[in-house]
């Protein structure tokens, strides 16, 4: 099958991701209803919302893993299957038999396109902050944080135009989180990679992303964090236990401060 041509990052092109009036249901249980948003090429966007709000379902619908009941999802103006080679994906959870004998390098190679050089594997492993020799380590012996980095390395292995990450920083320590944020900023600024991620870290979202999509079965807000993430919206999303505080002196790319919802936190805006 011929590889689709790489769309250029320009203002006139179709949106990287366009979700139009989408409803997703498991049988009678409607998980998402009337979701609409667009992510322009080269933007960084985040989906936020409480547990069970349908964030992962939304990501899976975009990736064609779950059918939509109604509405339409387009990636670069096409159905996902036509442009899958341009998309990298790292899931939230990766449950596997840790005794299974496969090295990090072999696992990475499972996703490598035939036209990508073999040297790319070690290159991406280093890019996510792991030592080059990690490629020879058995996958099942990695810590949760290291495994998460390997998943991100695998997602960027084929230099995707769109990177979709489901809670990419979960299990990563503070140093790893900083590396991850730098990596996202680097991919976005250097290669124009469009990034869509799910995050619970509102502080990080506020600094790192161009647009935020607030979801709790329905779409509650969409737009730049400063405009979309009002105290009222945060309250509507997470309840009164989460409040927002202005932290002067931090800008995009800085380390995260408070994060996690469910208790009083000092999310900066």
């Amino acid at each position, binding site marked *: 099958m011929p590889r689709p041509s790489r769309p250029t990052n320009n203002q006139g092109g179709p949106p990287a991701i366009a979700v139009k009036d989408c409803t997703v249901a498991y049988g009678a249980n409607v998980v998402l209803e009337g979701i609409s948003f667009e992510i322009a090429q080269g933007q960084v966007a985040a989906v936020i919302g409480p547990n069970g709000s349908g964030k992962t379902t939304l990501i899976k619908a975009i990736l064609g893993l779950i059918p939509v009941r109604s509405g339409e999802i387009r990636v670069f103006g096409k159905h996902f299957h036509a442009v899958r080679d341009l998309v990298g994906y790292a899931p939230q959870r990766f449950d596997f038999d840790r005794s299974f004998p*496969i090295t990090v390098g072999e696992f990475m190679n499972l996703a490598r396109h035939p036209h990508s050089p073999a040297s790319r594997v070690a290159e991406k492993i280093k890019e996510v902050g792991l030592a080059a020799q990690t490629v020879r380590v058995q996958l099942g012996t990695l810590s949760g944080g290291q495994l998460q980095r390997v998943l991100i390395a695998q997602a960027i292995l084929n230099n995707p135009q769109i990177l979709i990450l489901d809670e990419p920083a979960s299990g990563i320590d503070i140093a790893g989180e900083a590396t991850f944020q730098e990596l996202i900023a680097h991919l976005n600024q250097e290669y124009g990679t469009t990034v869509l991620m799910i995050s619970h870290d509102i502080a990080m979202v506020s600094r790192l992303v161009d647009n935020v999509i607030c979801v709790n079965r329905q779409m509650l807000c969409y737009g730049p964090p400063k405009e979309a993430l009002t105290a009222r919206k945060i309250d509507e999303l997470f309840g009164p236990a989460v409040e927002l505080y202005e932290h002067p002196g931090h800008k995009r790319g800085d380390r995260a401060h408070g994060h996690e919802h469910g208790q009083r936190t000092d999310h900066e805006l």
Partner: protein
Amino acid sequence: MIMEMFSFAFMQRAFVAGALLAVLLAALGIFVTLRKMAFFGDGIAHSSLAGIAIAVLAGAAPLPVALAWAVGVALIIFWLERSTKLASDTLIGILFTASMALGVIMMSFTHGYQPELVTYLFGSILAIQSSDLTIIAVMTAVIAAWLALSFRGLIYMSLAKENAVVAGVPVNIQTAILYVALAAATVLGVKILGIILISALLVLPSAAALMLVSSFRGYLAAALAIAELMVLTGLTASYLYDLPSGATIIVVGTLLFFLAAVVSRLRPAAG
């Protein structure tokens, strides 16, 4: 004595069939271990009894009928897994006992001693006919070609299904083909190892290899080597000491499994 063994045509056929089946079942056994579906091989082998009974009653060749029956059962399991909320093991348990029950009822319509049935239950090196060897060789070539073409995708979908789907691996089609290949390979091995013992050839080599290596390349090589050692040593011992072939192969395989367990305790895993 060893040279004398190869002067018999039935032993030559048994060794060729055994060597082919060892490669096939060991390679497929990797997916059985990875996907935790050891019961699948056991269930399919037992369910093939109904196919053998149909062939015996109809006076047809048992192997092709048993193959067709087992493939049918595998596809029904595949379909039920996707259309019910029941676990795979539950479905296999239901279908394999139902199929065996059907086989037992049909066997009750035949009269007298059924040597064919005893052969299929426990396996026999005398049982491999030239026509069986042809079927085994052709099926092995077809399944091996599919495995060679799909191996990376099969590993990817068995390890990280969602990522494999996103990467374009046709997971549903490949899973159905894997079930069919497993069913066919299991039934092909029934003549040597028997319905009761064949699933051990799916499980033992990959389980023993799992304890010795840390890379996938090493895993595949070790599983194939252990399977060949198990089958060829077992067949030789079976001839030399006049022992039942299937049972001897499994005893050798079990000894290799425990040897691997001891070796893995004595040294750190290596690729």
